[in-house]
């Protein structure tokens, strides 16, 4: 008897502890989920891995005598990967051979100008002719050289009234468009992106962040502070961009990491922007949530805070991928602004980052630079990742039916994938199966497309049953007045008869 009691007690204890254990596992879920996506309700849904680590490049494997020291930026052209090794004042060129990367050159000086060496270079770019551009930050210049490192020209502090001449010119990020124009971000410059023509002349700023203040700030500063206090406080200045990337259509993608986290969800912060030639943000946002990275984060965790996009890269199919240093994650968005996947973690294991600084792509593969680990992680898409790209490419090319089949394959791997439901729904709509399309759009909570499919469906149903609808309408319109008339007549007759009997 006693033994049974003991078992019973043990059982009860287990039952009491089990939910606690589950709760613990759940609260830890953020770190254990590597690849995920958000569903319609903003819930994090675990998903199959879209990318897998192919290799991690360290200084040792490359045969470098001095190891990399706080590298700041990556650049890819063809099979070459350029690494801006900031701490060692040099640029490394790695060349891809199959799955491996071999060191194929070290650029640490430029011939025919002074100074010949670099001082904390923080970005590198290469144009179609092979000319190399280096943002040579502490030498206050952007150097352009040919592929044999002969000096061509440099881009220095603009001698223009719009540029504050007291500030030193510290270029931090550069991109070069297809016509050879150079766009640069410079520390201390908050008027936007500095723009140079191909011949090296400064032609102004584009895409300035708007200065931001609210009414209360204004009232407080104007009426409740003394002149001295005001002078010591920061003035209302627009924020600087964090990083820029130029896509194949010469649109500049810029990321922004200075914002209040409350501005994120209402899409005021706009951490990712697509800037056209006159400086307007034309990023398409057709999802319920704007592209801001993580929608929520764990309170009191070490990495508490919103996603901060340090760099962005745009694939050839206009899918853009931003790297977040707060949580060490990568976020992929399609051209409509819908999140395709998110993955990553903070840590020391393969596929996790301590301080992700830069991202680049070579075809569909991704390279992520970690400035603390001095390593470059190369990711290659899994079957799941490839299917997603294939389906969206097919859709963009107008091959709607193939695209639907590919989306069905995606659904086999991840039944929670909203975009797949929408893709299949669109294809069914084109095949005039409106009822099926409505079913899929409903599963994806896509109101607009559902409404569109429903309109066609309703038209067909009405046309098919027009006879019955007319009869029903006629009944509704005719029967009540007729019944009313009959009742009224009867009542009148009855009243007349009654009056007749009483009179008699």
């Amino acid at each position, binding site marked *: 008897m006693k033994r049974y009691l003991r078992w019973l007690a043990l059982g009860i204890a287990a039952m009491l502890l089990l939910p606690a254990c589950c709760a613990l596992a759940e609260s830890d879920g953020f770190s254990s989920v590597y690849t995920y996506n958000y569903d319609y*309700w903003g819930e994090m849904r675990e998903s199959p891995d879209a990318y897998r680590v192919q290799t991690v490049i360290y200084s040792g494997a490359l045969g470098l005598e001095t190891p990399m020291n706080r590298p700041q930026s990556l650049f890819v052209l063809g099979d070459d990967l350029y690494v801006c090794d900031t701490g060692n004042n040099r640029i490394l060129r790695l060349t891809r051979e199959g799955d491996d990367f071999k060191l194929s050159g070290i650029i640490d000086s430029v011939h025919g100008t002074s100074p010949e060496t670099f001082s904390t270079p923080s970005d590198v770019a290469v144009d179609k002719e092979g000319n190399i551009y280096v943002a040579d930050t502490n030498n206050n210049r952007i150097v352009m050289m040919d592929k044999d490192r002969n000096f061509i020209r440099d881009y220095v502090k603009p001698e223009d009234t719009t540029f504050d001449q007291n500030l030193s010119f510290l270029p931090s990020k550069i991109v070069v468009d297809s016509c050879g124009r150079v766009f640069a971000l410079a520390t201390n410059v908050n008027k936007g992106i500095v723009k140079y023509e191909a011949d090296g002349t400064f032609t102004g700023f584009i895409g300035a962040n708007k200065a931001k203040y609210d009414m209360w700030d204004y009232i407080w500063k104007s009426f409740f502070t003394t002149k001295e206090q005001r002078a010591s406080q920061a003035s209302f200045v627009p924020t600087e961009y964090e990083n820029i990337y130029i896509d194949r259509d010469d649109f500049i993608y810029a990321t922004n990491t200075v914002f209040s986290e409350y501005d994120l969800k209402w899409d005021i912060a706009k951490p990712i922007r697509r800037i056209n030639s006159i400086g307007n943000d034309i990023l398409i946002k057709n999802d319920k949530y704007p592209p801001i990275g993580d929608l929520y984060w764990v309170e009191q965790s070490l990495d508490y805070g919103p996603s901060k996009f340090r760099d962005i890269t745009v694939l050839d199919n206009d899918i853009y991928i931003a790297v977040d240093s707060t949580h060490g994650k990568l976020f992929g968005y399609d051209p409509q602004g819908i999140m395709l996947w998110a993955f990553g973690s903070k840590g020391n294991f393969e596929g996790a980052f301590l301080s992700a600084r830069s991202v680049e792509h070579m075809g569909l593969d991704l390279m992520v630079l970690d400035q603390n680990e001095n390593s470059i992680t190369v990711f290659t898409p899994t079957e799941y990742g490839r299917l997603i790209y294939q389906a969206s490419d097919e859709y963009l090319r107008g091959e709607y039916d193939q695209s639907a089949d590919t989306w069905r394959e995606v659904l086999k791997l991840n039944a929670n994938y909203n975009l797949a439901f929408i893709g299949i729904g669109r294809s069914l709509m084109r095949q005039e199966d409106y009822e099926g399309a409505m079913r899929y759009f409903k599963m994806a909570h896509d109101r607009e497309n*559902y*409404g569109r499919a*429903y309109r066609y469906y309703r038209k067909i149903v009405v046309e098919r049953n027009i006879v019955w609808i007319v009869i029903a309408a006629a009944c509704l319109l005719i029967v009540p007045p007729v019944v009313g008339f009959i009742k009224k007549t009867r009542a009148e007759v009855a009243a007349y008869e009654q009056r007749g009997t009483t009179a008699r």
Partner: protein
Amino acid sequence: MSSAERLPADAAAVNARGAGWQRYKATLRYGLYVITHPFDGFWDLVHEKRGSLAAAHTFLALFLITYVLKLMLTNFQFITAPIQYINIYERCASLLLPFLVLCLSNWSLSTLFDGKGHFRDIYMVMCYALVPYILIQVPLILLSHMISFDEASYYTVLESVSIIWCLFLAFAGLMQVHDYSPGKTLIFIVFTIFGAMVILFLVLVFFSLLSDAAGYFVSLYREIVFRLH
């Protein structure tokens, strides 16, 4: 033409239950008159005894049922209710509680400032004011399945009509039941909202004190049990 006139002269002779039922039906039907003639209607509702508490309860219950049906059955194009997370009791309570607290607060304020209404009258008036919501929202559920997202304006217009109508009726009703001028009613509605907040605050303070007091006795009991063993 009141319901009493419509009944036969020898109503007392008819069995009492039947008469009660007749009266209940008449007071329900009176809801339809009230929403189209708010000023006369609410005056008669209270002063000519043409409404009944039973009908008021019915309207309140129907209102809650309509609300739940709306959450559950409206087409997803027009409502973002995460149906998997909804607790209908919680949702109903979050409507019912403010409703009753507002009635209470209005009553306590208006008795201080020569309002004529009893609590019973205020409650009845507020319940009768919910009738348009019931009458419009139920057909709206059906309509939501017949129109598409592009035609959402029909839906939203009707939805706002139902709510504005209700608010207007509540305003008219409170005005008649207390015999106030429109301006005074408006001011009192603002004060009523403040009053409701005060009531909620007091209730919270009361319960926190109560739980403290209970906690004291529980710990006293534990201490005694601990000493005894």
